[in-house]
């Protein structure tokens, strides 16, 4: 089952990788990085997740010390307004930030699966390997042991989800969710939240540069945690 899920995810991943990141929307007119302050929206709740090796990983250890862009996803998501937009955006951000001296050692990316049943560590390992080649910006993939263990994190961040069910109440494959990307500062505060109407690589990069200026000691190497 896990092997089949991994193959399915690999196929989806391949399709996603085929979509070049250049199709992100036109950039809004943004103020210069550092010329504005992002609001301190809320503290990022901690949660015990699983890393790509299947080892317990506190979310705070993934986000602490760096500027982190975090999104929730699931590997077989095909909602064109959901995960594919996050994928496309993160790919562009990873590429551009990796050659940007202001960000290349300060920004981390993190995807957390909404579907621990199907997205086990093997799937996370596959995705993490695919997305951490030559790029300087690390992109971590995390899952959890169960829906129940993930639920408090989703509630605390306001990441609303609903499982698709058939007439008999049996759960289907789709997980309806509103795409949200959270930009977290090195102290663990959520400083911006992006939804579909607001998410572009340019706006995320602009805000990440603003936080990088605010936190000159931020470092994205995992040793710096």
């Amino acid at each position, binding site marked *: 089952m896990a092997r089949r899920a991994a193959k399915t995810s690999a196929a989806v991943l391949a399709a996603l990788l085929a979509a070049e990141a250049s199709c992100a929307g036109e950039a809004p007119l943004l103020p210069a990085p550092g010329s504005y302050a992002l609001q301190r929206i809320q503290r990022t709740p901690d949660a015990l997740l699983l890393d790509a090796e299947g080892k317990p990983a506190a979310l705070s250890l993934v986000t602490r010390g760096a500027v982190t862009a975090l999104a929730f996803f699931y590997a077989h998501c095909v909602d064109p307004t959901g995960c594919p*937009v996050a994928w496309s955006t993160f790919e562009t951000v990873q590429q551009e930030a990796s050659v940007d001296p202001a960000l290349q050692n300060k920004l981390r990316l993190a995807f957390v699966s909404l579907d621990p049943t199907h997205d086990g560590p093997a799937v996370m390992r596959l995705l993490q390997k695919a997305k951490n080649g030559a790029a300087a910006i690390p992109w971590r993939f995390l899952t959890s042991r169960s829906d129940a263990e993930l639920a408090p994190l989703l509630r605390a961040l306001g990441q609303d989800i609903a499982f698709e069910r058939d007439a008999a109440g049996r759960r289907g494959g789709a997980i309806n969710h509103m795409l949200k990307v959270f930009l977290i500062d090195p102290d663990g505060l959520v400083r911006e*939240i992006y939804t*579909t109407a607001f998410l572009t690589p340019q706006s995320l990069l602009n805000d990440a540069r603003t936080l990088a200026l605010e936190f000159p000691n931020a470092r994205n190497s995992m040793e710096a945690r």
Partner: protein
Amino acid sequence: MNHNTRRKTLAGLCLLLGALAAPPAGADETCNSPFMAGLIKGQEQFLHVWTLGEKGVGDESDKLVTIDVIPGSPTYGKVIHTISVGGRGEAHHMGFTDDRKYLWAGRLDDSKIFVFDVGSDPAAPKLVKTIDNFAESTGFVGPHTFYALPGRMLVQALSNKTDHGGATGLVTYNNAGDLVATTPMPRENGGDGYGYDIAINPAQNRLLTSSFTGWTNYMMDMGQLVQDSAAMKNFGNTMVLWDLKAMKPQEVFSVPGAPLEIRWALKPGVDWAITATALTSKLYLVKQDENRQWRAKAVADIGDPSKLPLPVDISISADAKSLWVNTFMDGSTRLFDLSDPEAPRQVYTKKIGAQVNMVSQSWDGKRVYFTTSLLANWDKKGADNEQFLKAYAWDGKELTEQFAVDFHKEGLGRAHHMKFTARTPKAL
């Protein structure tokens, strides 16, 4: 997949994503925040009316009234739920959180904010939180407009606790109700410090605000107010264009006569907004000129301005081709053709009642709802103080009444702001 095929596939995907990423804002289904999920593009099921308690009417308390608007339902057009919040604090406007699960509702007198859970069961909203330290924690008074940002609620206040005048500000809460930031309205470079409505164009990173008046005026009896020449000078005459990301004012426009509700055109790629001025009875267009400079200019009269028809709420169609404009004094609604937003034309009018304030239309524009109360001390007196919700069908030519709820006969109070919900809103 060869290179050309892949390019075509990508182009198709980009078009799809681009279309879906267009600002989804919308009529009172279209006037919601573009950051809000689950626009109801089909049939709304429940209509919630934030209702002012009225002395001698029912329990006399402010309340959230829920009405079944599902055609064919045994309780269609009937009140199916009420929840009183206690006291009379000048209930006014409401707004959904970004996930459309919670409805924030404000009171202009005591500045309380009530948060209702409308996601668990929209037929029976539950009060889950009351913010009762708005004035103390922000210095502002009169939380008026509630506008969803991702994970946050942006609130436009009308007044301040120091002098109860019109100088005020914007307040940001997170969705848990924790105060995040306060931002004063500009009082320099032409700014008068006043506030009223909020409207955001995410693609332009632009926020527009308008300006009304302070607590002293909006709590004064209207008959007394219009005789008070000094008080009548204390109305807003500006709109402000903000850099949304930075929350910094960029331009202050002169818009005399209390510009109220603001609606951005929802048509993708069209970046203009429209507002109505209450005291000068004009439609103003906010748009970039040929030099890409933002300007506000009067583009039409609403009725006969010399007769002070008092334009109040407006509602723009999803295709930005038409605009409903209510005029309180004659109790009428007017439809303007916005095909040329530089020259709107009134093409239809209908008397709704002795007084009319709010208007809300469905996304497809086929259903239009009206309520009556403006402010407790500004509503008409005696027999003209009609308080109702009326639902109409619009076929493009005529408004046809579908049902009416008499808020006095039902013991409810003064009917003010309306919001729609549905049990299974279709996510975009």
